[in-house]
Structure formats: C-alpha cells, structure tokens
C-alpha cells in the first residue's frame, strides 16, 4: 500500500475529477456556463502539453484544430436554429446565405450559394459531432506524415503550423457565402441527444464538458505512460538516437500530433455547444499562442498541469478584467508572469508542485522505505 504522496499523480487527477463533478453543487447557471468554457480551454492546454511537453513539437497553430471542431459543430447547430427555418424553404437554410446568394438563386441548401451543398450532410447533427473530431485527426495525420516524414523539427514545425492557421483564417473570412466570414456562425440551435436538449446553461451541459475533460485527461495520461508514450519522450530528447534504436520516429510523432488535434477538435466542438457561436477569431494567431501560454504556466511537461493552468488563468483573468482599474494592467501582468515563468519556472506550476512533493518525500524517509518495500 503506497501512501498518498507516493501516488500523488493519481490523487491529483482523482481530486480534480471529484472537484469538477461537485462544482454544480455550489455555482449558479451563469458561473457553470463560464467554467464549462474554461474546461474546454483546459482540454486545449492538455492538447498543447501532449505535443509540446511530450513530443517536443511546438504547434503554434493549435487553433486550427479547435476552429475546425467549432465550425463543424456550429454548422450542425446552425441548421437547427429557428432562423434557418425562416428563410422560406422547407429545409433549413442558414440566414446569412440569403444575403450572399446571387439574385435568383433557389433558396435551397443544395444550391443557394456556390458550395453551399457542403452543408448538406450537416442536416444530421451527428455529422457535425463526428467531423469535429475526425477531420482534425485526419488533417493532423496528413500534416504529420509530411512534416515529420521530412524530418522537419523544432521551430520549422511551429512556423508551418502558424502559417497554416493564418492561411485557413484568411480563407474562412473570405468564403462568406459558406462561413459568414468575419461575423462567424451565430444564432445556433441546441444539441439534442435522445430528446434531451443541451441548454448551454443547464447542469447537463456542464457535466457533458466536465466528463469529457476528465476522460481526455485520464486517457492522455494513460497514453503517455504506455510504451508509445515513452518512445515519444525519447524522440523528444533525441530523435536521432531514437531513430537509430530502430523506432519509426515520424509515426510516433504523427500519432501524438493527431491525438492532440483530436482533443483540440473536441474542445472546439464542446465550446460551441456552451458558447453558442463559432468565429474566425478562433483561428487568430494570438489565440493559438495564448494556449501555449496556458500550458507553459501550468507546466508543459504535465497534462494535468497544463489543463489546470488554462482553467486557472482564465478564471483569474475573468475576475481581474471585471475590475475596471486593472483592465489594461492585467495584460502587462500576464506578459510579466510569462517572462518570469519561462526563465525561472520552465516546468511551470506543476513542476513546482512536483519539486515540492519530492522535497516532502525526502523529508519523510520512512515513507520512502515503506514504498520501496511495497514494490
């Protein structure tokens, strides 16, 4: 039997899970909705930690996958919005398509604007749910095969992902007849599963997000502890050495890149359910870099740490930005916090926690002996 400190990782995960599930007991609907959004950000933190901390690949375009997830879900929900049924057709047609339609075009989803047929599959809401996760995974798989197959690494991966997210953002904003451009997709309906509507402010929706986050964290943690995860960490520390040991390094990197993309897509999908809109601002560079900040402050080497970092920073930010005197100062504080973290706490808050626990264990040799005897 190991003591609580011996297995502190497990207890940390378990603690967070209990905390998240117990939260609806204390918060009101507004607060729960807000926390649910931050839990989505927590998933993003975990996704960044998975590639950056464990694979050494800094993806500066994680927003791309989040954006795909968000848009896929939003397309599905947009067709369920009552405004989509108001446009004078039997089948739902998004209102913005009417503004963008050529004069005389039929008010049908198939052909109202060029390319509007792409929306047809989204009449079935599960298309949105599936595409939100599968498309990021596929795209990341292809990107990974090309990028890692070429043995491109380090900052070059960052520049490619960054250029790609900016490119996609331009296209999304430009393709107004399909995406409503800069305004994004708003006025969405609700996700309905077996007759249950996911009202963004209801506890059910909060639980949907909370359980998803717990699963994501737990499964990611298990994944990095597997043999594949260990090999991945070896490639991070020296990919040449791992290659010489006979491992298919690009395959491992691609796999984790794709998993991380899937998590980001899931986060985007859930975010839309909670916040009821999708916007090209998800594809802005600053958002993708902000995710990296969350992970860095929380601890890039820890999936849990990165997720908690994301949630905490956002909670503090929300509080501070509602204090009028601190609005501008807050950004300066974030900048400073970040510089200090990178210099003095490269492992982030979770690194600090790890060190603290390690020190505690040193002070309690009896515990350590017991632990060793137990193994």
């Amino acid at each position: 039997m190991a003591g609580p400190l011996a297995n502190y990782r497990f207890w940390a995960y378990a603690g967070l899970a209990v905390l998240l599930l117990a939260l609806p007991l204390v918060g009101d609907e507004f607060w729960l909705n807000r926390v649910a959004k931050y839990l989505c950000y927590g998933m993003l933190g975990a996704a960044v930690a998975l590639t950056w901390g464990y694979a050494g690949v800094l993806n500066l375009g994680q927003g791309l996958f989040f954006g795909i997830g968000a848009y896929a879900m939003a397309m599905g929900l947009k067709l369920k919005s009552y405004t989509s049924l108001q446009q004078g057709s039997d089948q739902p047609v998004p209102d913005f398509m009417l503004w963008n339609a050529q004069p005389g075009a039929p008010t049908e989803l198939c052909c109202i604007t060029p390319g509007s047929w792409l929306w047809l599959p989204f009449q079935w809401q599960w298309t949105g749910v599936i595409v939100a996760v599968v498309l990021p995974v596929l795209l990341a798989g292809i990107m990974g095969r090309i990028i890692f197959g070429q043995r491109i690494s380090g900052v070059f991966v960052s520049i490619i992902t960054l250029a790609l997210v900016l490119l996609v953002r331009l296209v999304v904003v430009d393709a107004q007849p399909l995406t409503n451009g800069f305004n994004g997709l708003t006025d969405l309906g609700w996700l309905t599963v077996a007759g249950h509507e996911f009202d963004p402010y209801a506890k059910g929706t909060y639980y949907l997000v909370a359980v998803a986050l717990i699963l994501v964290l737990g499964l990611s943690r298990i994944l990095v502890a597997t043999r594949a995860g260990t090999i991945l960490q070896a490639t991070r520390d020296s990919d040449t050495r791992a290659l010489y040991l006979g491992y298919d390094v690009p395959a491992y990197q691609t796999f984790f890149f794709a998993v991380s993309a899937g998590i980001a897509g899931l986060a985007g999908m859930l975010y839309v359910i909670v916040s009821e809109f999708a916007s090209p601002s998800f594809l802005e560079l600053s958002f993708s870099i902000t995710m990296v900040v969350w992970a860095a402050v929380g601890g890039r080497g820890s999936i849990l740490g990165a997720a908690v970092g994301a949630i905490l920073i956002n909670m503090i930010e929300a509080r501070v930005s509602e204090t009028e005197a601190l609005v501008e100062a807050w950004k300066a504080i974030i900048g400073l916090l970040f510089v200090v973290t990178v210099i003095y706490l490269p492992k982030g808050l979770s690194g600090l926690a790890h060190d603290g626990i390690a020190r505690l264990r040193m002070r309690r040799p009896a515990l350590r002996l017991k632990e060793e005897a137990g193994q």
Partner: protein
Amino acid sequence: MVDILFIGLSLSSILLLVALGLAVTYGAMGIINMAHGEMVMIGAYTAVMAKIWLGLGLIASIPLAFAVTALAGLAIERLVVRRLYGRLLDTLLATWGIAILLQQAIRLEFGLSFLGIHIAGLGSGLQNVPVPAALQGTVRLLGHDFNAYRIFIVAMTAVLAVATWAVMYRTALGMKVRAIIRNPQMAAACGIAVARTNALTFALGSGLAGVAGVLMAGFKTVAPDMGATLVVDGFMVVVTGGVGSLLGTVAASGLLGEFNALVAMASNDIIGRAAVFAVVIGVILLKPAGLFTFKGR
C-alpha cells in the same frame, strides 16, 4: 507592369526592413525574438515623440530611433534573453511576453496613466508622423509615376542591407559573430567574448528594427499593436531564405514581395496574402533548411 514590379519591390523592401534585424538575431544568435515587432513599434513611437517634443523630422529621428531601440534591445538581452541561450522555443515564448509588456508600457504610458499623468504621443490612441515635403507625391521616371516615399524606403532598405552586410563581413564584430554561428564553444575557446558579442548583436538587430519603425511611421498608423503582424511576416522571410544567410533573407523578401504583388494584382489582396503563406509552407516542406543556406552549427 513596371508599376506592379515597383510595388512588389516596395513590398519586398518593407519585408526586408523587418527581416534584416531578425536575420541578425535569429540567424546569428538562435534567438526567436517575438518582441522584434515591438522594437519596430518603439522606433515608430520614437519618431512620434521626437516630432512632438524635440521638433525633429522623420529623417532626423532615424539615428535617435536606432539608439533608443538598440539600448532597449541591450536591456532585453541582459535581463531575459541571456538566460535562455540554447533554448530556442523558450526564447520565442519569453520574448512574446516581453512583446506584450512593451505594448502595454506604451498604452499605459509606462504606468504614468495610473497616476493621471498623460504624455502627448503615448497612450493607446493612433499616432502619425508627417512625411517630409520632398518625399510626398510622385516622381516621374522612365514614363511612370512612382511614389517618392516608397522610392525612399527602397533606397534606405538597400543602404541598411549593405550596411548590415558590411558589419557582418567587414568588421571584427561581424567576424566574431560568424565564428559564434559556426561553433560557439570553439569561438569562446579562441578568446571571443561570446556574451558580449551576443549582446552587441542583439542590440544591432533591435536597432535595425527601430530604423524600420521610423520608415514605417511615414505610411502606416502608429499604434501599440502595429508590430504584432510584422514579426510573423519577418520570420517567414528569414525562415524561407535560410537561417543565418543574409543573402537568403534578401532573396526571400524579394521573392515573397514580388509574388505577393503579382498575385494581388492578378486576383486580389486576400488571395495574394494567402499565396504568400502557401509559398512559405511549401518552401519549408521542400527545403526545410531554407532556399539559401550553408551547413553550420
């Protein structure tokens, strides 16, 4: 067609203005300086302030801006970057934090706005710098009208590029820098003061950004967040050209600028910009080391 080629040249020169300083800091030192755009911004604000407080014109404020941003660069190197050598991605993150700090410093007027003190020229508002009368309007050359200020920028960029080349390849400092690029340990062993050289290099790169800022102030709005997009473009140029290759940076900026102008003219500006991103991605995928490069480090 001549018009378009000239516009392409002008776009190229603006890209190169930003990329020159980055080529020096990133190429020579392995520092991804995300605050480089903010150095441009500080250079532009130096011109604004010099106009308001000292009555200096745009051209007269160029050396001043170089000095101010070089000193700022030196301070950043001493306080932050120095601790991060060898941690490439960490420099990216730390300097991104610095970038936010610098933007906020201008917005909050170095914190004085909390005390109710307002300095003309700072704050979150938009500023502008008048262009000298001689550089306004157009110049007629070979039967075409050219924008005088853009010609000035192209000429200044050429001067700066040559000057940077001269510093890197014709001075003792440049020789040390190149030695450090090839092999820092060996350079140190040969008695080169690596830390001092790095500090000077960083100051040089920042100073170049400051000059770029003054020139940009002549045709762009000066605002605290003006540098944010510039740095991304600058990096794409440097990476496309090949890290550590000044010639590569010059060539890449020429290529991307002309390409942007031609595509934008043939279709529209949005596609022009998207095409530039696509080219950058393509180049990195096909030639990860950049178009022009040599084996080093």
